[in-house]
């Protein structure tokens, strides 16, 4: 639901991701992280809603 709410308010849904990875599944963990980093690099950083420096 959070994902679809973010999508509704104009955030790319690829930016939020949830997976179940057990402590013994090191390989899966690495795969998930590599995949999401690759995807995020393709989208690039979010240009809006950037917190202003104080």
């Amino acid at each position, binding site marked *: 639901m959070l994902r679809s*709410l973010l999508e509704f308010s*104009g955030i790319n849904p690829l930016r939020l991701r949830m997976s179940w990875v057990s402590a013994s599944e090191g390989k899966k963990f690495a795969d998930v992280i590599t995949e999401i980093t690759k995807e995020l690099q393709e989208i690039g950083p979010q240009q809006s809603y950037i917190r202003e420096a*104080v």
Partner: protein
Amino acid sequence: MNVQKLKEEAARALGRKDVKYLIGYKKGSYGFRVSPAFIEPKEDIDQLIMSPLCNMSLVKYVMMEETLPGLTEQALKPSKIAIVARGCDSRAINLLIEEKGVPRDRLYIIGVSCQGVIDQRKIEARFPQVTEPAEVTEENGNYIITVQGQSHTVPKEELLAELCTVCRYPTPLIYDKLIGDKLAARPFHYDEIAAFEALPLEERLAYWQQQFSKCVRCYACRNVCPRWYSTICSLDSLSPQWLRRSADTSENFMFQIIRTFHLAGRCIGCGECERVCPMNLPLMKLNRKLEKDAKELFNYESGKDPKAKSLLTTFHTEDPQGFIL
């Protein structure tokens, strides 16, 4: 709306030994405003009104009473509060009972079948600068509005609050006494939400950025919400500080997402947040999006049944799991 019958029921409720006071509506001090009325036994029951102007939710006051610190079981006797509830209020009460905010036996609910209420902004735009209290009655699809001694007839559609057109349950779902006829549940309408979903991502982003930039973070939407009654709130917390105090677009976005998500599977669609918003943010658009998701993904409607389990605290193996990647 049969006000006489409401007064009779109210008098009967206040005559009970276990009822402490009654929360209803009374005439406001100016224009098209109504005030909440807190009537104790032997007080004047005639101040009670029920008209299309009664557009505020009274459920919040129940919670405010119950969360007073230092009240012992003894001090709470006689313990019942009588409350006048419309369809949406009754759903709020249902959810309160379900979340164990207020026990059912603390409430004496006078249900009122609601034909929809007037949008304050619409009527004030139509009759600006009204200082004397005005009166409104409904007749054959028209509102008869008495302002400063003059009577005007306005078609209902022109002043009806937008949310009332998508109201599912005009008749209360929980009550001890019901006033007015039972009205059938109406079908779902999420057309405007679906239309907004269909817009491209950039357009939606631009729309919300523009909207959120207006927010002044007065927290009126949070404070008025009958769903908000916790004493610890992440929005007030300074350590850790989840949210900065500054009212800029990025913090406002964060605030609104937190506020909306807090209502996932809990919003009962009374529209109080939108009504009190000084900046006219379309908050119900976010809330109704979650309502739509809850209905479509989990076939869940909030506040329908006081014995139901709330959506986000339950798990079924057949729940959709598309979000796990």
